[in-house]
């Protein structure tokens, strides 16, 4: 009798929920598309889409609840005590909750958009759920193999999603580019992992930490390759060239989803890798991340200035934000990491909101892409113009918004760990960014409307997402330590961010 391993399945509960959700959606799509009427209602394309999106939202809400309960409970649970592949701890449950929330918002954002673009297929939600389950696996992983498994499960559905508007050439181009670059990145990452395994004799983070020999060049090469692999995923300069093309070509709702969640998952995994596995190498990593961070901030912001397409502009802006986030990696302190987590939450809301406005303007198969087409929006769509202005101010980091609070926390962490030059670069480039972010409010409020046919009414799903994002941006900017909610009392997001990374510092 081979003893059965003492598996703790509750560790994987959020991921299992999402996976069951994706299978339910696949089966539901097949069954619904064969039926003529369900409960007396005629089955149409948009009916199927709404039902499946509702299913996805339901399962994400369950996941959010499950990981929230796990976070409130605290403590660390391991999947398999003999070979800890996955770990449910405050960090993974908190990041999982953030991922579930942003995936939920993306699903609500997509319902009307997909039928506007006539790409209303149930697989969309199944693919979103599959990639979300990959992200959740990745942030819970404490083993290189598990990290790689999660990364691939996250990436492959997103390659498909990027090409989801399969009749459009640009969407196909986007998917193919992302797929080719992404596979190279995965291969590089895997090579790095192999070298690290060779050096330390184990794939778990604990074994890596114990067996790491910082003088061994092989270890440094492996570490470098792993960093490069992740750099592709979070589009650090100089590994960023795919970002604008992919973000531009993919359907806007997909761009909203992948620009937010992939960054959250990849940054969270990097934090865990640095804190749990590469501790002995902090000094040399700090230099690498210093250079990458400075480059990313400068190139992202400067390239964003000359863009004429909203999605490209937001793509470069997301590169710049990755640069600000990396300042937290350079500091390597609990303050820096918790600032990163807070910034990621703020970035989730403001970026989803900004892409949400682009989604809400898409009209009959056409994405609203040119920056010039925002002219006079305040006259024609005052509500949308107001929230778009708010998201732009937040992305630029104007006080009173979540973006400001996030940048403030990150820059404070940089000051406290003595990275004054990085702080100066960051602040200067934030000033540059104000130029291109404010172009859109200026166009919306100070120009006459062009003869452009936007959609004239907003769908309830899109409206709800935009309202949630706008309120969250304001609340996180004004009172980050006591976000008022009707249902749950005041929420202390700053304290949550601190508690989630506190476990890496013995807290």
């Amino acid at each position, binding site marked *: 009798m081979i003893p059965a391993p003492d598996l703790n399945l509750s560790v994987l509960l959020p991921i299992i929920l999402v996976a069951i959700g994706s299978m339910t959606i696949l089966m539901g799509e097949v069954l619904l598309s064969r039926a003529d009427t369900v409960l007396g209602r005629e089955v149409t394309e948009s009916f199927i889409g709404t039902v499946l999106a509702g299913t996805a939202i339901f399962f994400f809400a369950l996941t959010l609840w499950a990981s929230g309960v796990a976070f409130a409970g605290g403590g660390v649970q391991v999947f398999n005590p003999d070979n800890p592949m996955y770990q449910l701890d405050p960090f993974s449950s908190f990041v999982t909750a953030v991922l579930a929330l942003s995936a939920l918002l993306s699903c609500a954002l997509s319902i009307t958009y997909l039928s506007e673009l006539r790409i209303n297929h149930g697989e969309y939600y199944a693919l979103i759920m599959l990639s979300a389950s990959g992200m959740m696996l990745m942030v819970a992983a404490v083993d290189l193999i598990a990290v790689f498994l999660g990364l691939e499960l996250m990436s492959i559905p997103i390659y498909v999603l990027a090409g989801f508007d399969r009749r459009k050439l640009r969407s196909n181009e986007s998917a193919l580019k992302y797929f080719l670059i992404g596979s190279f990145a995965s291969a590089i990452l895997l090579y790095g992992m192999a070298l690290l395994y060779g050096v330390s004799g184990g794939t778990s983070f604990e074994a890596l930490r114990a067996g790491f020999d910082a003088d061994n*060049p*092989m270890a440094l090469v492996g570490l470098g390759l792993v960093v490069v692999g992740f750099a592709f995923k979070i589009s650090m300069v100089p590994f960023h060239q795919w970002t604008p093309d992919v973000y531009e070509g993919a359907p806007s709702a997909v761009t909203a989803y992948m620009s937010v969640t992939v960054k959250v998952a990849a940054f969270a995994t990097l934090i865990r890798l640095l804190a749990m596995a590469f501790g002995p190498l902090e000094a040399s990593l700090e230099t690498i991340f210093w250079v990458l961070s400075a480059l990313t901030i400068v190139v992202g912001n400067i390239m964003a200035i000359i863009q004429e397409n909203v999605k490209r502009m937001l793509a470069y802006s997301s590169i710049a934000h990755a640069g600000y986030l990396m300042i937290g990696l350079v500091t390597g302190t609990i303050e820096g990491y918790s600032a990163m987590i807070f910034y990621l939450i703020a970035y989730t809301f403001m970026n989803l909101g900004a892409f949400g406005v682009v989604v809400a303007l898409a009209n009959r198969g056409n994405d609203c892409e040119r920056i010039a087409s925002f002219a006079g929006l305040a006259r024609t769509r005052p509500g949308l113009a107001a929230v778009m202005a708010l998201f732009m101010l937040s992305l630029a980091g104007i006080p009173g918004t979540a973006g400001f609070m996030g940048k403030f926390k990150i820059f404070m962490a940089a000051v406290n760990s003595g990275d004054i030059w990085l702080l100066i670069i960051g602040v200067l480039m934030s000033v540059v960014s104000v130029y291109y972010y404010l172009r859109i409010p200026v166009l919306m409020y100070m120009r006459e409307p062009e003869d452009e046919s936007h959609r004239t009414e907003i769908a309830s799903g899109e409206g709800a997402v935009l309202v949630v994002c706008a309120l969250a941006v304001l609340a996180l900017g004004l009172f980050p330590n006591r976000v008022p909610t009707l249902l749950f009392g005041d929420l202390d997001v700053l304290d949550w961010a601190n508690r989630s990374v506190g476990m890496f510092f013995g807290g």
Partner: protein
Amino acid sequence: MDQWVAAAGFVAVAIIVPVSMLVGAKLLAVTAKSSSKLKTMTYECGEEPEGGAWLQFHPRYYLVALIFVLFDIEAVFLFPWALAIEELGGLAIVDMLIFVLVLLLGWGYALRKGALKWQ
């Protein structure tokens, strides 16, 4: 310093192995002396090929191949499981049922979507 030597040796081996394989293949390969048609055929004996090999395949082949991979993977996991099932006990049967169920769902989806219809 020793470790740098090891790393250099690793790189050297990584280059020498594929180069020597290519050169070896070049040296050892038997080439048809006469350019008789029989010698240059795909199969020197056996089936006679019809037409050229460089033609476009219908995308349905890919669908069938993908579904084949589904069952291939299933078989890969079923074999060791079947050999060890006596020692693994009852829980293993439940585990494998869940695994097969997930694959069956995928197969059912493909079938319903008409991936195996050939017309």
